[in-house]
């Protein structure tokens, strides 16, 4: 259906950009095949390395521009973990910082023309979300033992409705990794598809000035969304971490 659509309607199909393709030709994709997803995830790691390791290598008292960006990112995430998860959440700051930087850079690199957005794939975001979910659940049981289950027993509510609330709490607990991952992937897919739809309209001469304006406007919005989604993903991780450390309402 996709090819039929492309030949009749738009110049190219807006969802073509999300195709996972082997880098070195061929069709078969095995688990070890280097694909464009592999390439862009690698580039994400390289970009983070350039910013955080090489950029701050000078350790100058008066930071250079790159160093101050790295310090800004560090301070931003540090404050977020401290505010939301509390002082004892700071032990897990390195993992949360890693998550934030990876998602932020994957989102931003996906905005480059001809780029591939790794975070637009549910397969990628589900791994990130499940890692948080399983990690936080294990951590909750290790730290609190069986009293971690107090998370589902809302003591501030009247006794009669507590069992009902417990069922709702358990359902909402297990929906967490779903919404956590789909939110990121959905936002990225939707935004990039809209940009490509506007770009495809530019093929018609009458529409092209309007379409280019639309692309520029959506691009600006997408830069904002890329940041906000990375922020939301990390702050929800902090909230879940807080629940695991302090399960009592």
């Amino acid at each position, binding site marked *: 259906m996709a090819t039929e659509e492309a030949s009749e309607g738009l110049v190219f199909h807006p*969802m073509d950009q999300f195709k996972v393709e082997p880098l070195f030709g061929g069709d078969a994709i095995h688990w070890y095949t280097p694909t464009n997803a592999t390439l862009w995830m690698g580039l994400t790691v390289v970009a983070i390395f350039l910013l955080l390791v090489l950029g701050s290598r000078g350790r100058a008292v008066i930071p250079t521009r790159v160093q101050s960006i790295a310090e800004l990112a560090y301070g931003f995430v540090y404050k977020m973990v401290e505010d939301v998860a509390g002082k004892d959440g700071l032990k897990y700051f390195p993992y949360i910082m890693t998550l934030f930087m990876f998602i932020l850079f994957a989102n931003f690199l996906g905005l480059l023309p001809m780029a591939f957005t790794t975070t637009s794939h549910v397969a990628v975001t589900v791994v990130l979300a499940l890692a948080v979910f399983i990690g936080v659940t294990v951590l909750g049981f290790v730290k609190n033992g069986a009293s971690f289950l107090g998370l589902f027993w809302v003591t501030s509510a009247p006794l009669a409705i507590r069992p009902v609330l417990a069922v709702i709490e358990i359902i909402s607990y297990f929906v967490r990794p779903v919404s956590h991952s789909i939110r990121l992937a959905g936002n990225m897919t939707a935004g990039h598809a809209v940009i490509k739809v506007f770009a495809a309209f530019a093929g018609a001469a009458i529409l092209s000035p309007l379409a280019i304006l639309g692309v520029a406007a959506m691009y600006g919005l997408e830069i904002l969304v890329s940041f906000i989604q990375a922020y939301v993903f990390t702050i*929800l991780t902090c909230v879940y971490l807080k629940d695991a450390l302090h399960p009592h309402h």
Partner: protein
Amino acid sequence: MEGDIAEMGKFIGAGISAFGMGLAALGVGNVAGNFLSGALRNPSAAASQTATLFIGIAFAEALGIFSFLVALLLMFAV
């Protein structure tokens, strides 16, 4: 007429699921608007609540994204 009734149903379903996105927009607007009206009454307390604002927006938005996902599934997966 080409295509079949199932094909038509897919497109209609995807269109209907767009309503969900509009409703999520109402929800997000409600969260942000209420935050703003509270923040203007007490600006000194606003800065400490931006994290809560974003969490609220994220929860409201997630359901709109789910309906977008339903549309995508109907168009490309079913």
